[in-house]
């Protein structure tokens, strides 16, 4: 067990009713584990006034009721909880794996070309690099509990769109910076869309409404139009047997 060092974590006010706790150890994996373990400690034993937490890649936003507690009290409670965390412990001991079929390009061929241009690659290399890794779900993000992933091994980060789209369709598979994701809902978007999955990610009748947790894994593979149409609307589910 190794606790996070005092200097490895930055606790800052993010407005009057939230704290942003950021891992700054320089080890991204460790920072990610720390903020997610902290989130679990908070929900297992919520300090007075705690409302909820939004853990991300290397930071967690902790929201609280400013009538029931104060920034200082909440920061103190967080510091105390950090002391009980094992920064080396894996986030999940039984990660589930999700295989995501993607129809690359098509109506978003121009985005795929733009990503190729930025990275100095061919569109086919972009697809190959995107399909290579077994990604870890870093956190659930916007919109709709999107699985936030580390980006593919592109030579340079991909910028965000200079003018975000008003609407990106359900199942958009996109990249920005050194990140990648799938969009579970139709929503505005500022990322380059390189393809679409026919599988339905979000199910409001389920809790949680998405079939993955931080720490689960995702991989992408290319499919054609026929297979897309065949799978259209099926639910995305973890593989029965962990691979």
């Amino acid at each position, binding site marked *: 067990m190794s606790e996070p060092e005092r200097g490895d974590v930055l606790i800052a006010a993010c407005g009057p009713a939230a704290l942003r706790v950021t891992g700054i150890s320089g080890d991204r994996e460790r920072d990610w584990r720390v903020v997610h373990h902290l989130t679990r400690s908070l929900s297992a034993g919520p300090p007075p006034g705690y409302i909820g937490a939004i853990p991300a890649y290397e930071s967690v936003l902790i929201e609280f009721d400013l009538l029931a507690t*104060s920034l200082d009290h909440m920061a103190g409670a967080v510091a105390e909880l950090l002391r009980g965390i094992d920064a080396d412990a894996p986030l999940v001991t039984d990660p589930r794996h999700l295989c995501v079929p993607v129809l690359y390009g098509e109506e978003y061929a121009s985005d795929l070309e733009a990503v190729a241009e930025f990275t100095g690659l061919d569109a086919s290399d972009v697809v190959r690099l995107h399909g290579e890794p077994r990604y870890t779900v870093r956190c659930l993000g916007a919109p709709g509990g999107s699985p936030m992933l580390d980006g593919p091994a592109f030579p340079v980060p991909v910028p965000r769109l200079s003018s975000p789209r008003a609407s990106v369709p359900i199942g958009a598979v996109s990249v920005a910076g050194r990140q990648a994701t799938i969009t579970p809902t139709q929503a505005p978007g*500022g990322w380059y869309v390189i393809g679409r999955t026919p599988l339905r990610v979000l199910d409001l009748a389920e809790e949680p409404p998405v079939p993955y947790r931080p720490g689960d894994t995702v991989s992408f593979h290319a499919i054609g139009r026929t297979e897309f149409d065949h799978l259209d609307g099926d639910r995305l589910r973890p593989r029965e047997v962990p691979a």
Partner: protein
Amino acid sequence: MTGAITVHSAGFAVVTDLGRLRGPSLGLPANGALDQYSACVGNILVANQEQAPIIEVTAFDFRFATDTDLLIAVTGAPMTVLIDGIEHEMWQPIAVRAGQTVALEEMTAGLRAYIAVHGSFEVPLLLGSCAPDPGVGFGTVLEAGSTVALARAIEPIATPYFDMSLFNLGVLVPHIGGTATIDVTDGPDADQFAGTADRLFRAPFTVTARSNHIGLRLTGELPIRRSTEEIVSRGVPVGAVEVPPGDELLVLHRGRGVTAGYPVLAVATPLALDDLGQVRPGQQVRFRRSTVEQAAQNSRRWRSALDHLRSRIAAVYSCLGLERLLHPGVAVPPAPAGPLAAEGTT
């Protein structure tokens, strides 16, 4: 049979509540009433729990009929409230008889009015909240012909006193309209706007028509972000002031995506967010630098005004022989109507 209301005409109206507190940790925004104070006052006036489902009427006229007796209150943006054509006060409880029609007309300022109904509504919940989330296609949107069942039947309220100004409930009615002053505290990334961060406070900004429940977009002299480095996505609070690419300032509201990759310049206080829930496109907003301590103090004052109102309401309803309204046993979230109605007599 608990009775129901039937919408006759609606521009944009929904059934909402104070928001989905369990949403953000699962990637879903809180959403809920954009003017939380007005929503809370509405529910308190009709002796509901503050988080009970309530109708939010945005901008346009709204009219509904009821097949059961109701106790309602209308709060928020100023509108003319008509019961079968007779004008009634906002920010007061109003007894409505079965068969009557309630109309809200001509919003003269602000953007959102609230209709609270004693006993509240039976509506679907997602993670414990009925707040619409258009992003995931959830919510109760009201259109002409929509019917919404009440969560609980109430006995007729036969009192003439609601129509007389016998009781001064002392509701603190917010000023809505004109240039809004929006208190913000410094954001954690203000240093990324070094040298230009103060532009936020120098001159007013103008609200644009691209504003909605996700965020307000404003034009003005924008602070300039010094760093162009890509920020990895992280959680952002409701109220975050950001400068995304383009020519608008963005202030996130309750429908905001929970993660984003822009630096947070400042954060609007909870009370300022209520004011932002009432500003219209074209209206001006002046930002004012505040502190965490001041924000907490203002919120405490807000809370105390609501608590006092609740105790005055309890006193008034007791005087009128309407104690039964104060102990409705309405569970939130509402359970099926039958058992609830039975519990209501305890």
